[in-house]
Structure formats: structure tokens, C-alpha cells
């Protein structure tokens, strides 16, 4: 069964794309067939994989199920990791979704034809609260929520709790991102994280680091820029924790059917 994981935060610049790209890479490295859908019209993860931010037919055809999703998927440079690229027209995805009867089910339906093929689908979401994010909540099995300890307010967690309460079938995993342990505020916030009812706090924290910033220059994953570095290890730990919580330590079956010849 395909697991759909969405990196989500209402705020921008908190490490969503970095998490989606690096975790997607690790999933594929483990032998899972993995797809990353770059839903952000800015196309940051598409850029990181050196792929053109273009989907033939744009948002309307894609969410209208008029364009076969398999035909717009691109292979990345990493074996087992494919990308459904961003397109500038995604900025109007709300409008496109709103034309349908059950708009929030649309994204899931776009993915239906390719579920057989992938063990994991990562959704890299644009910041905001909108019909797109509602659809993401509907399509996802789990949300991965990066949180910068400095900006943490009790409201952030309250909102997450509320979200998780509304959707019993959606798991919500939060983790600290862009952590600077030299800052007292960060250390203090992290030490004071209270237990939450429905939101699970993942053990690993992603440090704020130069290696992650270099991703934009080198246009690849941290594990390739600086294998063995602190952020590379942090993503490993994070991925291990996520897999454990999803109860999927190994590829369900190391078998793939490649329907492309």
C-alpha cells in the first residue's frame, strides 16, 4: 500500500522542501519506489532536481484527470526517486479544484492511477491554508510538520492538534527544523515541548546548516553534498523514526513493475 506523506506548514521558509527532498531521497535509497510531487508553484524541489518546472496541460488538465499523471512524471538522477514537477499554473490550483464537486478529494484521485507503482509519495506543499492544503490533508496518510523552535507559539501546536482531531485517519508528525543550538531560545523551546494528544513529536531535529543551504547551489541532496555531516545524519534519523512509526522498516516487497518499455 502506498503511503502518502506531506511536508506541511502554514509558514514558508521552515524547511518543508528540504525535508521532502532529503526524505524522498532516503526512501528511494532504501529501495522504496518513491514519488515526490512538488505542489509549490515556486518549484523549489523541482529546481533542486534540475527538472523543468513544467506540466503539460498545467493544473487544469492534471486535476481534471484529463492528463495521464504517469505521462508527466520525470525520473530524477536518483534511482527509484521520481518527480511530479511543479508548474507555475499551480498558483491557481485552488480555483481549479473549486470547480469540482468534491474538491478536496481531487489530489488523491490524481494519484490513484500510479499508486500501484510507488511505495511512498511525498507531497511538498506550498505554505498557506487553502483548498490545496485541505486536499493535501485528505490525500495524505501522514503530515510531516517542520517547526522552527524560535517561532513556536502555543498556537502552532494548538492548531496542529485541532487539525489532527478533525481527521482521525491522518497522522501528524512534527519535528524541529533549522535548529540553532547555540541560541538559548531554541534550546529552551525544545526542552519545554509538552506532550500532545494527537500530534507526535519526532525525536530527530534538523539543524540550521550551511550544507542544507548549499543544496540550492549544488542542486542535489545533503547526503551527496556532505555525506556523514550533521544534517545528513539528522535526516537519516528522522527518516528512521518516520519509517518506524509507519511500521514499514523494509520495502514491502523488493519488487517493482516497470510498465515502461
Amino acid at each position, binding site marked *: 500500500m502506498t503511503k502518502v506523506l506531506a511536508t506541511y506548514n502554514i509558514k514558508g521558509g521552515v524547511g518543508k522542501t528540504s525535508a521532502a527532498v532529503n526524505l524522498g531521497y532516503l526512501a528511494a535509497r532504501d529501495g522504496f519506489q518513491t514519488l515526490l510531487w512538488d505542489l509549490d508553484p515556486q518549484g523549489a524541489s523541482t529546481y533542486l532536481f*534540475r527538472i523543468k518546472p513544467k506540466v503539460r496541460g498545467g493544473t487544469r488538465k492534471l486535476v481534471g484527470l484529463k492528463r495521464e499523471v504517469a505521462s508527466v512524471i*520525470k*525520473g530524477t538522477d536518483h534511482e527509484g526517486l521520481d518527480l511530479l514537477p511543479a508548474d507555475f499554473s499551480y498558483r491557481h490550483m485552488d480555483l481549479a479544484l473549486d470547480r469540482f464537486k468534491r474538491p478536496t478529494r481531487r489530489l488523491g484521485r490524481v494519484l490513484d492511477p500510479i499508486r500501484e507503482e510507488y511505495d511512498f509519495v511525498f507531497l511538498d506543499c506550498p505554505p498557506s491554508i487553502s483548498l490545496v492544503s485541505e486536499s493535501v490533508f485528505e490525500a495524505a496518510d501522514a503530515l510531516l510538520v517542520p517547526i522552527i523552535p524560535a517561532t513556536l507559539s502555543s498556537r502552532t501546536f494548538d492548531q496542529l492538534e485541532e487539525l489532527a482531531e478533525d481527521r482521525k485517519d491522518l497522522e501528524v508528525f512534527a519535528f524541529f527544523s533549522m535548529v540553532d543550538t547555540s541560541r538559548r531560545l531554541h534550546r529552551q523551546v525544545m526542552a519545554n515541548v509538552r506532550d500532545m494528544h494527537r500530534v507526535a513529536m519526532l525525536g530527530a531535529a534538523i539543524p540550521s546548516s550551511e550544507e542544507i543551504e548549499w543544496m540550492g547551489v549544488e542542486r542535489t541532496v545533503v547526503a551527496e553534498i556532505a555525506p556523514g555531516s550533521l544534517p545528513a545524519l539528522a535526516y537519516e534519523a528522522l527518516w528512521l523514526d518516520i519509517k518506524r512509526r509507519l511500521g514499514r522498516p523494509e520495502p514491502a516487497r523488493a*519488487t517493482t513493475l*516497470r510498465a*515502461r*518499455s
Partner: protein
Amino acid sequence: MSAELLPPDSLTLDATEVVLSAGLAVDDGHPRELDRIFYDTFDGLLHAEGLALVHEEGRLVLLDGPTGGERAVLAAPRPNAPLSPSTLAPGPLRDALCDVCGIRVLLALVQVHSRVRPMRVLDDERKTVVRIRLEEPELISNGADTMLRPRVRLGAVRGYDNELERVVGALESELGFKVADQPLVDEAVRAAGGVPGGVQSKLKIALRPDQRSDEAASGVLLRLLEVIEANLDGTLADIDSEFLHDLRVSVRRSRAVQRELKRVFPPDELARFRAEFKWLQQATGDARDLDVYLLEFDEYQAMVPESMRGDLEPLRGVLRERREGAHQEMVQALRSERAANLFAEWRTFLDGLVSMPAVERPDAARPIAEVAGRRIRKVYKRMVKMGKAIEPAGPAEDYHELRKKGKELRYLLELFATPLYPEDVVKPMIKTLKSLQDVLGRHQDREVQTATVRALADEVASLREGPRALMAMGVLVERLGEDEQAARSAFAERFEAFASKDQRQVVKETFA
């Protein structure tokens, strides 16, 4: 999408690499060694479908033969014995193999050791769009290893098929590369002295209508002997049940030719060989029957109510035991001097048939089309007569006799009419005959199966779970009987088609 190309003859692997890196691709720089074993069934079922199965680097991979593209993959250790697809872990690879191979097992064909070097083609964003694998393969065999031609495998990254086409086009038009004329496995099999596509048990023999009948008969019989001998080792080693089946079909076909074209052979010698072939047929009969019981066992289980299906297992156990015994006896017979002599003497006899005195062989020099045509007409007429005489509630023996005649006619049609007479007559005739034979076969099988299940009752009863098994066997016997009756009811309609006025007319005109 993928493609396999051969560099121009003058280009070594190293030179190819230089040429590629100059214009197109970047070198990944990690040459490595790759050991592969290719598999197929004895009769080349994968090859026939344009597929190849290979084990490399801890994976079984189903390849598209012409392009080398991967169809399905399964992580698995290297099989160290004939591989039965049904024993693989569930998934697309197993499904695909079971679909193509059925009950046949996969045998190791050739081992290839390669030096490979991966390269990549990048676009203007320095994104990988085509993966290239340069390969210098070598056939590993017990004797001397043989170098095979270097080849270049190109695989498109998903969504970049156009780029692959562009690269293939450039390699062909600018650098003199050629699309590989055969898959690596075929080249390796040829280099090992084999024939790609495996050993066929199907006969394709070219005959001329005016050919001497003894010459045509010996040609067909020699080919049948080849099939018998080709399937002998697999039968003895019990690799899969198709070896014995194909062997027996060829024995039966040989016997049909001996009987139907008897006037091309010297009578005394023919009589001796016919006795020996009959012995061969009988010596392999029990083993085959029990194979069929076991192959069809799931079907029997499906005939009884679901709650009773498990109760039939003791019967399966008894059948398995019997099958082991029958197989051992058969192996003894096939390994005997008698069998060895039979094959050797039969071959010598057939080789010399044409030059034997013609005195006692009135049909020997007559054209085969005439002799076979006459037999076809005769056997057909005889079948029509026999079939018309069958009463719906008549003895099972009547149906059985008609079926035996039907087999004779079918072999005559397949072996002689197919190469000698118009296809538009022969093909539909074989089809209506087959459809009749299916019903007769089902009738006969059910009759025999009922008797066998009854005969095993005592043995099964003595087992621990015996009583429950007996109850299920009772239900099975009833179902088998019902199916036998169903076959009987279907007979009239099938026979009518076979013996229709039009069909009779066609036979009369064609095989006059």
C-alpha cells in the same frame, strides 16, 4: 524505454568510451564486474515471448529481449537448481513468469561475465537524461571462455524518452553504431553452441506432395525420435512434467505413423518395432497418469464443497506416493538396455528404410500426398461410422474407441496434411476434430479418474484422516460422474459438426 546498440566492429570498449565521452556523455568512472546467469524453459517459452530472465547482483530481472529494458524485478538469491516460477515470492515477476511458463521450470542457459562501465548523458541543466552502460561480455563455460561483442545499453530516465531517441539516432548516424541484431543471451547461447529459443517439441517438417512415402515417413519419424531423445534427460531427472508429456506425445505420434503408413515398412521388422513402442508407451503410462492427477488436483478440490476441500489432502498424499513409485519404475525402464537398443535400432532402421527392398512395401515409392490422403479419408470415414453408432447411454468403451481413432486422424492431419494440403481445409478440420476430442477426452478422463479414486479408497481409509477423506472422495466421484455425463451430452453436437455433410464432402474432395 531502452535500447541496445553494438559499436562499429573496429571500436573496442575503451575506444567506445572515449568516443562517447568526447561528444555526448559523462563518465561515471566506476567500472565494475558483473556476473549474470540467463534462464529459460527447455522449450524457450520466454524467448518465444521476446523476453529473457537473468540473475544479476542479487536480483532476478525479467528483460525485454530486443531492448534489454527491465520489465519486472525481484530481489532473490541465485537459483541453484531448476527454478519453478510458482515458488518465487509473490509479485509482478512471479506473475509474469507463471503466465508465460505455466508448469514449466526455468533452467540455467548460459553464464556471462562482463566488465561494465556506467556513463550518463546530461542536459543543459546537467540533469541525467539517459543512462548508458558500456559492456564487454564474456561467455563463461567449462571449456575456454569466449569473448562476445561489446555492447552499449541505453536507458531513458523516466520522462526523457525523446532524449534517448536523440542519443540513439546520433550514435547510429554519426558514429556507425547499430541496434543490436540479437539480445545478449541469444549471442551467448549461440557462442556456447546452442540454438536460441530452446528445444521445440513441435514439428515443422517440409514435405513435398510427390515425395516417396517411405522417405516422408522416415523424415517425420526421425524428427519424432529426436524429440523423444531430447526430452529423455529431463524426464529422467524429473525436472518438470512436460518432458515426459512431450516424450509420450512423440511416442504416440510415432505409433500412429507406424500403423497408418504400415505399407511403407517391411512387415516383420515393423511388427517388432511396434511391439517395442507399445512397451515404451506402457512403461511411461502410469507415471504420466499420476502426473496428471496431481496437476489437476486443485481442480478436483474445486469440485467438492469448500468445507470438504481440505479433507481431500490425504488422497493427494497417496497419489504423490504412487507417483514416486511409478516414476522410479519408469526411470528403470527408460534407463534399460532395451530402451537404449530400441532408440539406436529404430534410428538405423529409419536411416536405411528408403534403400530396403520394395517387395513387401507396396506404398513405399508412392507419393506421400496420395498415401496420407487416402489414410485420412479412410480414418475419417471410419470415425463417422463409429460415431453414428454411438448411443447416448452406450458403453464408455465406444466413446473411448472413437477417441483413439480421433487421435490417429489428428496426427495424420498435423504431420502430413498440414504440410501437403490447403491450409483452409486442414486448419478448420483440425479445429472441429479437436473440439470433438476435447469432449471425448473429458469423458474418458472422468471415467478413468472415477475408477482410480474408487480404487484408492481402501488405502486412503487406512490413514489417520481417512474417514473424512473418504466422504470427500465420495462427493468427488459423484461430481466426476456428473461431468462425464455432461461430456456425453455435449458429444452429439460436436460430432454433428465433425461429421456434417459439408465436412464429409470437403474430405472426399480434398483427400481423394
